[in-house]
Each structure stands twice: as C-alpha cells, then as structure tokens.
C-alpha cells in the first residue's frame, strides 16, 4: 500500500489531539493513492461534523462538502449520473460520522438498495463531536454523553446490520487503529456497487474523558456490539445500479414527439356550455368527459376539463367539470352549470354536499340515472335508465350523449370518431352507450 503523503496535503489536521479522524484520513489517502486512478476520477463527498473538515486535506481530487446527513444522497446523484450518462469512471467516496449516519440513515439504506457505486466510510466515534458530544443513534447503551448524563438508555443501532438487510453488497467493520484499514478501504472503493465501512473511533474531546475510554476498551466495545470486526461480506452477484439500469433501459429514441392532433372539420357552438359530470370512481366518468372535450378540440372549439376526486383515487366520487366553448376559456370554475349529469348516487350526493346542487337554477338541466334519489331536485330532472341500459361504466357517457343531442352540441359521428381513435377495437361498448344516449336525447 502506497503512503498517504502524495494525496493528503501537508497542512495540520483540523482535529483535537488524538482524534481518530486523522487516522482514517491517512488510511483513506493511502487507499486513494493505491487506486492508481487519475485525480479527476476521484470524488470525496463529506458530511457535516468534525469528520467533514477534509476539503483542505485532499486538494487534488474533487470534493463536495454536503449537508448534515445528506452526503450519501448527493453522492448517489453524482454516481447515478456518472454511471448512466457518462462512462462510469468516477469513484465516489462518502466521509460521514455516526451523527450523519443517524440523521441521514435513509440515504444509506436507499444507496444500498440501489447498489450505486458509492463507498461510505462511517467514522463512528459514537457521538456528535462537533456540537459538543451529544448522543447519536450509534451511541452505546449506558454511555455518558452531553445529552445522556446518567447513561444512554437506548441500544445502539447496528448500522452495518441495517445496511446488510438493505442489500449492501460490500460490508466491513474496522478499528481506526488497525494497520490494515487502508487495504480494507481500498477494497471497498474498488467494489463496483455500494460499499460501507464502519470505522470504530475515539473522540478524545468527549467520548474518551466521559467514558474513560481507550483503544483497548473501544475494541472490546466493538466486539460486543454489531457485526464482527474485520468482517467483510461481498455479494458480487447483484448487479450495480449502472449495470441494472443499462440492462433494463436500452436507449431507444430521441424521446416523445408532439402527438398528432386530429383535425376534423370545424364544429360550431353559439355559446359556452358548462357541464358537471358526477359519478363513482372507476365508472369512467373522466374518460366520458374527455371524449366530449377531445371531440370539441378536434373540431376547432375550446374545452377545459377539471377533475375532482377524494384523496383516495380509486374509490368514492369522481367529478368532472367540463366547459366547451367557441372562445378561449380562462376561468374554469362553473358557478352555474348548464347541465349536471348524475351517473350514480355517490356522485349526486357529492354535488349536494359541496353546494353545486344548491346553485342550480331553472335553466340548469339535471340528467340523472333513474335509480338515484334526487331529493328536492327530483322534479323536472331528466331520468334515464342509464345504469340498467349501458351498465355503470357507460352511464356518464350515455348521459353526455343525451346532452350532446338535446343541446345540439356535438354530432354523434364525431363523438364516435373520437371514441374509436382513443380506444380502437375496444371502443364497441362505449360507442353503444354513446349511441343509446344520443338517440334518447335526439
């Protein structure tokens, strides 16, 4: 293993005397040197904390000093882009503390799942050094820290274990004082997928004095917690993110072109018409409204279609607000609908609950399935056997067909044209529903 001298700047280490961070810096320098890679193919992404003060120490490689805990996510973005959009030559190494690994745990888990080509070196000194020695998620049980003055009540997170179960393909745990550390880091960096090395460290400012810690006790601690020291698990079978992506996504084209807009002969409309179509989710309320809108647009008219549904998209009401107009449409609300369609009880109830029904006046048409209880609105409403004749999923379409005919909005052949264009040989039942409604309204 070459020495770290060529890689690490000769300035003084920014850490307290005896801090293990310095040992890892030297080992990392030697490991990077040993890769033999050109400097511009090496990138260090550092987290926040004492651990992150490395930019000045590695002046010849790319360095990104990230946010607290987010270093692994930034590194993953760099490595994904480099792997898929470039030649994948860049080696990205994250330098992070136990604190960063606590606040940013999900980024480590995600990187392991993705198996991105990122090496994460977790500098575990068992507490937040920079902020004054508070407990992290990796602080051992019963430890004294600034925030656990009578001893940490929680067991430490087994980080390597968590990442093992997340799919990490290279795992190691080492003492900072171990002479073999540089070799281990080198192996991790050479690994083409996600690699994590947890390095057991001393924080001489807090961890050591508060817990009368020394190297020997640290080793004991390491042996009692988490995965075994020196352990190294390599799963070479799982493809890296880059390999998996390239396999799944062969490059096939220049991307989407503008869709062909059919232009049928001009249609005319003497005024804007505003419909509220209400039904039940899954019963093709939206696609019925879209059919009218598309037909109008193909004929040179203007249309807007606004969906409303509960937060759960597959259940409950489904409402479509549809405006057809000879002029461009700006305001898309419908304070006074020309017609409402009630294709199901659930849909109608929503119109009552939200005050749409209360705003209807004498001019507004109500076209409703005959089975719906319209309450006070029953009188004067148009009742059709929609659900019985064209089934639940044809009800909205049939009602709109009825309106198209009765209000002389859109011709049947154009509506059928749009349906066939949209649904091809599956258009049969929709066309039948349209036809039935149109004839009933004509």
């Amino acid at each position, binding site marked *: 293993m070459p020495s770290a001298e060529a890689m690490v700047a000769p300035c003084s280490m920014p850490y307290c005397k005896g801090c293990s961070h310095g040992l890892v810096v030297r080992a990392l320098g030697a490991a990077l040197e040993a890769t033999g890679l050109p400097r511009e193919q090496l990138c260090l992404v550092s987290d926040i904390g004492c651990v992150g003060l490395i930019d000045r120490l590695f002046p010849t490689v790319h360095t990104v000093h990230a946010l607290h805990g987010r270093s692994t996510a930034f590194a993953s973005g760099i490595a994904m882009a480099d792997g898929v959009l470039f030649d994948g030559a860049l080696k990205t190494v994250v330098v992070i503390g136990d604190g960063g690994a606590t606040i940013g745990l999900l980024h480590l888990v995600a990187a392991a799942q993705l198996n991105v080509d990122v090496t994460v070196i977790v500098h575990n000194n068992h507490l937040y050094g920079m902020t004054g020695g508070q407990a992290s998620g990796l602080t051992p049980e019963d430890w004294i820290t600034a925030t656990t003055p009578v001893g940490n009540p929680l067991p430490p997170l087994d980080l390597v274990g968590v990442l093992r179960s997340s799919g990490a393909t290279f795992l190691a745990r080492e003492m900072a004082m171990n002479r073999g550390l540089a070799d281990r880091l080198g192996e991790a960096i050479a690994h083409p997928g996600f690699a994590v090395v947890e390095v057991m460290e001393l924080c001489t400012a807090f961890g050591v004095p508060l817990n009368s810690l020394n190297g020997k006790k640290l080793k004991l601690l390491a042996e009692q917690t988490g995965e075994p020291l020196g352990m190294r698990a390599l799963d070479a079978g799982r493809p890296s993110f880059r390999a998996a992506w390239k396999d799944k996504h062969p490059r096939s084209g*220049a991307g989407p072109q503008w869709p062909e807009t059919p232009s049928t002969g001009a249609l005319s409309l003497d005024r804007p018409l505003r419909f509220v179509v209400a039904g039940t989710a899954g019963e093709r309320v939206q696609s019925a409204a879209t059919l009218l809108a598309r037909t109008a647009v193909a004929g040179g008219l203007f249309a807007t279609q606004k969906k409303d549904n509960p937060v759960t998209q597959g259940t409950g009401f489904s409402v479509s607000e549809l405006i057809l107009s000879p002029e461009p449409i700006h305001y898309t609300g419908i304070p006074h609908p020309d017609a409402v369609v009630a294709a199901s009880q659930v849909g109608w109830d929503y119109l009552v609950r939200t005050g749409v029904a209360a705003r209807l006046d004498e001019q507004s048409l109500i076209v409703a399935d005959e089975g719906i209880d319209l309450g006070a609105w029953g009188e004067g409403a148009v009742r059709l056997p929609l659900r019985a004749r064209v089934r639940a999923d044809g009800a909205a379409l049939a009602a709109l067909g009825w309106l198209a005919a009765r209000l002389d909005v859109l011709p049947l052949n154009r509506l059928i044209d749009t349906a066939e264009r949209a649904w091809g040989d599956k258009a049969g039942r929709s066309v039948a529903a349209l036809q039935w409604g149109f004839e009933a309204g004509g």
Partner: protein
Amino acid sequence: MNPPTGRLLTTGNAMSAKAALDAGCRFFAGYPITPASQIFGAMTATLPSMGGLAVSAPDEISALALCIGASLRGVPSMTATSGPGWCLMVECFGYALMTETPVVVAVVQRLGPSTGAATQGAQGDIALVSGATSGAYTFPIFAPSTAAECYADTLRAFEWAERLRTPVVVLSDKEVASTAEVVELGGLPQASGAVRTAWGGGEGFRTYGWEQEADVPPFAPVGGEQVVTVTGSAHDRAGLLKKNDPETLANLRHLQAKIDAVEAEIGLVDTDIPEGADTLVLSYGVSARASRDAVAQARREGMRVGFANVRTLFPVPRTALGHALRGIDTVVLPEENHSGQYRQALGDVLACIDVRPVNRIGAAIKPSEILDALR
C-alpha cells in the same frame, strides 16, 4: 426539428414535463404527491428511453439531493412537488443556491397548511417558497397561468437555472397544472437549449471564480478534467470554507448580485393595457385566468381597465411593472390566499397606488369577485 403545429388537449403538468425534456433535462428524481405526480409520471415514462435517468427517491429530501448530485456532475436536473414536499426540500434548495448548482423544482400548489387538502387548489405558497433560504436570497420563481405557459416557463426555468447557476422554481397551482385545456402548439416558444457557462480549461480555475460580483462563475463538473471544490458552507472563491473573511462576504453578496443584475431581462409581465387606463388588474397563476374574464367584462361595461399577468414573480420584475403601472392609480390584485402574499412581496412597487386586494381560500377567485372590486 420543425416547429409543431395543431392543437392539443393537455394539462400544465404534461406541458412542464415536455418542456423539461425539450430544454435538455436528463435527470429527474421524484417522490409522489398530488397534484404534482403527473410530472414524475411523465418523466419516468419518457426519460429512460432517451438515455436519461428518472428515479424514485425515498423522500423529497433525497429527491432534490439526488438532482443536485446529478447537476454537479453536469446534467440538467429537475424534481417536482407540492407544499408538504417543498418543506422537506428547503435545506437542499439552500444548498443548491449556496453552491451555485442549477436545478429546476416544479412546485404545484395545493391547499395548506400542513397536509391540507391534496386535491384542492391554492396560491398559498408564495411566501413559503420565496422565503426558502436563510438570508432571504432571491432566486427566480416563475408562475404560469395556462398549460401553454407551463411549457414556456419551464423552458425559461432551465435556461435561467443553467445560465445563472441557480436553483429556479416553477410555481404553478392545482388548477393550472392539472386542468386539461387547449394548447395551440404553433404559439409555443422554441427551446433554445439550456446552456451552462462552462469553464474553458487552462490555469487559474476556482470553483466560484467570478470577477465582478454580478458575474456568473464558469462551471466545471464534478468528475470532469478540472478538479472542483464544492461547499455549502460559507466559502471563498476557491470553494474553501472561510469565516469572517472579506472575500467570503463578497461571495455571499455575489449570490444576490448575479440575480439583481438580470432583473430587467428575466422579469416577464404580460400586459394588455389600453391607452388611458388608470386601473389595472394585476395577477398571476390561476387568479390571472379569472382576471382576464373580469377585465373583458369590465371593458364591455365601458370601464378602461388594464390587465397584467405576472410570469416572473421573483426577482420582483420592477422594470416591467414600472412600465405597466405608468398612469395607473388603482390596482386590483386577486390571489388565492388569505393575506395577499404577492401583494406584500411587491411592497414599495405599489407605493402611492390604491390597492384593492381580492383574496379567498378554498376555491379559485371568481371573475365576479374581481368585477366587484373594480366597480
């Protein structure tokens, strides 16, 4: 590529996604949220086959962090979210601003606070988004009011993000982004291709090597031949962490200066102001749509009323608004929030003008409400 013709029934979200692709976006990381998910869906469906990357992030912090990483590698990147997701992105957004990393975030507003109402529109995030950075640094925020403007403003967002090395937000709202409407393809602007000012090579590179405070420093990607030093901590032009240092403070001023310097050029306000009008309806986003109808009706009633649709919310387009407000003594300012967030942001731009706010939450402002304020 021939300019497109014809017309399309489509949504603002779909147009934003198309614009991103046309602008050269090749990396998208997303986390689903109504009413922005459609952008994520469109990018997932299209980017991979074009040789780009569209990935699912485990949360919005990761989504923006991944985009920033890809952009540091030199790839135009984008994510999309709504209020709750934006809250998670704020820390990374500040990082993008501080590290001068281009990235575009589409924020589709829904009714807040908190989880609020996912399927209800609002214009309630003007202050939340514009005030995202500690120190209140200015970054471009564009506000489309139609599906076609979603296309144009997303193109602009990429162009300015790359040119200025800054994060940019396209701030739409549920109604504008997810209501299907007609887009006349012939009327869309052509993508000019977003270009990042690149380091040309040679000696003397510094990661943040501007000469004049308002300059944009030439960019070199992480992983490129020129080694870079990127940091979100206060830094000198070399990218090295430095506290209490005149160059560090100058660098912070530079972050604001480069935006201020382009105010007139980036400021976009669409106006329709008849000769002699002394009243102006000034709006943006969904409320600009009702404003158009209200202004048309007011004119039919014989009022001489102007209309201004503010497309660049920030930096506050002082130059463009200065022109629009010439001779105007009354401004009606509708926005779908309860406190008039943009009215407050305009501050002294509206000094000496009789301002009539029209505010409501829960539904788009109606043309009739704007007419009432005009009468």
